[in-house]
């Protein structure tokens, strides 16, 4: 997985426009969801890692999104579901671009244990761009802030 800052940055730039303001947070949540449900277990209780095998798979995440959507008010359920799905999809696309030395992602779980990835970069490569991501976000927020002040 790329780090969550990289995932967040991608989600941030895709939905920074005010058109997405209402459900932007749900999209962000979707984009970190695959890792926040599985990685803490993996890191804190590595012996239980085998219980997280299913959690980073499209089928599991699809059902989890439906489950989470049910926790929202019926008037906003459809939007929440769509933004969650899109967020998770963005996460999986970024993960697909990586390469792993061993293991990988089970895209077709539970039907197949085959792994596949495009292999453009190692999981730790985007980490080197951490200062770039933070600067870009701060610059963008600065520009939006200036525009807003000028508009007032």
């Amino acid at each position, binding site marked *: 997985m790329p780090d969550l800052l990289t995932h967040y940055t991608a989600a941030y730039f895709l939905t920074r426009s005010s058109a997405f303001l209402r459900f932007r947070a749900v999209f962000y949540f979707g984009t970190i969801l695959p890792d926040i449900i599985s990685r803490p277990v993996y890191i804190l209780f590595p012996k239980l890692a085998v219980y997280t095998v299913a959690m980073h798979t499209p089928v599991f995440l699809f059902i989890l999104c439906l489950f989470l959507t049910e926790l929202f008010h019926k008037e906003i359920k459809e939007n929440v579901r769509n933004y969650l799905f899109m967020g998770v999809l963005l996460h999986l696309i970024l993960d697909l671009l990586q390469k792993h030395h061993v*293991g990988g992602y089970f895209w077709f779980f539970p039907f197949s244990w085959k792994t596949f990835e495009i292999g453009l970069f190692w999981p730790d490569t985007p980490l080197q761009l951490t200062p770039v991501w933070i600067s870009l976000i701060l610059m963008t927020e600065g520009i939006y802030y200036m525009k807003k002040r000028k508009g007032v």
Partner: protein
Amino acid sequence: MSLRVRLINNGRQFRIVVLLTYFIAMLLLIFYGKNFYPAITLEMCLNQPERYDGSQIDIGTEITVDKIYQDGFTIKQFGHIVKVKGRAENMEPGDFITLSVVFHKDGWLELKSYHIAKKRRFKIAVSIFPALLVIYLLLKSFSFDFKRFVFEERH
């Protein structure tokens, strides 16, 4: 009971059934993943050395380098310390690594390939901040109504 109350109750019961169905489906997937995961682990090899002698295994769950020797190094995983024979460069004790090795029944591993995840600790640290930020933004946009058990938009 009025028709309206009955409809509300039916709606609530339906929602509970839907939530339970998704929850059970997720549990089934978790247990399927746990029980049918086809990989051979280091733990399995150490528990049944005769059976797994000569098996090629990929190990990547929380392995750190313990000590470096001239002919290889030792790794630590789940409290086990195991010798790996083979040349490894740029490796330091404490590094997180992934390994592809051949298991030998007398308790050592023959190195085939490896990858050092040098910045793993930094990666974890960098990931915590966006996770907290997203949860904050989510709770800023939505509040949870415990009585109705739903998230609602804050206005």
